[in-house]
């Protein structure tokens, strides 16, 4: 795919002006980094970072019965939340494979907003629209909203400086306005830090972006790209769809069973997932942490006792721990604490099997 075929967010010119390096992701040309991955990563852990994640999908499900309809399709139980709350959930196929993982914003019983991954938005919309009963409307709203993520211990100060609401509970959201621009301010993120994601009308994103950078200047805010987003989420062990979750990697294998409403009467993939849960998964997603200097990368082979055991699905250098970390699909008999080897371009590097997160998260504090 040439650069010309990639979609651009409404902040593209801002990123160019800030000297970003770009990379294609999910069909979008996105800022990979500005000052550098480690610098941006550290800013988010210690101060605050601002991400443009407008490539993320957006879709609305509206009309009478919208909530019950979505609850009968996606895995997590919408009974667990009320209006004003968001939830992590999965869209599976009938075999239990993961079409996408996404966030559902429950505005009202007849008004839900979904935020799927960039590359999967159209497919999630297609599946929901095909199944929707009369009166329930599923709409692709990918370019209706920009998404700005303000992440890090200083995020409350930055939002407060703009007069925006802060301090609402983790995974809840507030609808507000800034300078006449309507905003949804949600206490969510993909970094493991305290932070917020703002849904902004697509064409107003630059105004809000500029205001956040100006308000954050005294708090050490930096623009941060997808490179830092990936190292931050990997330190948390958060799965990335297409690597750690996929049509071939079920939520039972990826240990995302906490996002499945097992007692619900219906959701896509229910029978297959219940059967896999009862039988026990053939492989499980585990954390691996380097004993030496090796850095695992997706696709590398994991061996145990000299025999092939599994595959690395995500891997990077952890800027916080200063060592290689990753996620790998391994047989269930390989327990936490055991040693495995990863074939790093012909070298057998030793890793310890651990339970993520690799770095303690601070998302939920009040």
């Amino acid at each position: 795919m040439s650069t010309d075929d990639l979609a651009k967010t409404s902040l593209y010119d801002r990123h160019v002006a800030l000297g970003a390096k770009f990379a294609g992701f999910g069909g979008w040309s996105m800022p990979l980094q500005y000052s550098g991955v480690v610098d941006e990563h550290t800013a988010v852990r210690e101060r605050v970072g601002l991400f443009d994640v407008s490539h993320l999908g957006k879709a609305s499900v509206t009309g009478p019965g919208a909530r019950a309809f979505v609850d009968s399709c996606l895995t997590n139980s919408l009974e667990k939340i009320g209006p004003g709350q968001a939830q992590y959930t999965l869209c599976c196929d009938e075999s239990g494979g993961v079409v996408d993982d996404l966030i559902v914003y429950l505005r009202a019983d007849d008004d839900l907003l979904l935020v799927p991954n960039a590359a999967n938005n159209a497919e999630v919309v297609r599946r929901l629209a095909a199944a929707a009963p009369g009166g329930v409307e599923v709409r692709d709203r990918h370019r209706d909203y920009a998404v700005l993520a303000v992440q890090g211990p200083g995020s409350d100060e930055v939002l407060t400086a703009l007069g925006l609401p802060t301090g609402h509970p983790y995974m809840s959201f507030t609808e507000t306005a800034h300078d006449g621009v309507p905003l949804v301010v949600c206490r969510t993120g993909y970094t493991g830090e305290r932070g917020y994601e703002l849904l902004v009308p697509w064409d107003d994103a630059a105004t809000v972006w500029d205001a956040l950078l100006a308000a954050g200047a005294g708090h050490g805010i930096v623009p941060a790209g997808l490179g830092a987003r990936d190292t931050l989420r990997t330190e948390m062990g958060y799965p990335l769809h297409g690597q750690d979750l996929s049509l071939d990697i079920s939520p039972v294998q990826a240990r995302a069973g906490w996002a499945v409403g097992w007692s619900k009467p219906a959701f896509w993939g229910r029978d297959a997932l219940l059967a896999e849960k009862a039988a026990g998964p053939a492989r499980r997603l585990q954390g691996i942490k380097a004993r030496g200097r090796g850095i695992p990368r997706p696709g590398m082979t994991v061996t145990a006792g000299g025999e092939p055991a599994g595959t690395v699905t995500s891997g990077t250098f952890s800027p916080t721990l200063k060592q290689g970390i990753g996620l790998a699909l391994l047989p269930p008999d390989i327990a936490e604490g055991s040693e495995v080897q990863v074939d790093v371009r012909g070298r057998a590097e030793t890793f310890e099997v651990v339970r993520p997160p690799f770095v303690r998260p601070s998302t939920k504090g009040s």
Partner: protein
Amino acid sequence: MYPDDLRYTAEHEWVRSPGEADGSVRIGITHFAQEQLGDIVYVQLPAVGDEVTAGGVCGELESTKSVSELFAPVTGTVVARNEELDAAPEQVNSDPYGAGWMIEIVPADTGAVDQLLSADEYRSQVEG
């Protein structure tokens, strides 16, 4: 960004002649290369005494996002390696022509360095 007193390769290494060790040349990667790689977190270098061949892979540079190979600019014997890069690989980013140097090689053919790109030639390659 591309000092005039150095020689360069198309694979983005620089060569300084002479190096500190007797009869050696010093080798590193260019400003352009470190910028393309991003934050370098791991540098694997050949051992002192290793024989390297011009154009052959002699090491590995790993950044937060990617891996790239280090190529030997000339044929010869490795006589020194920058041990500081083990603990401080970020010096390759912050000072690619100084503290971020990588190895010193005693070339088998002392004229080989003169065959490499001049600063002007290299600059026109990367700035196209």
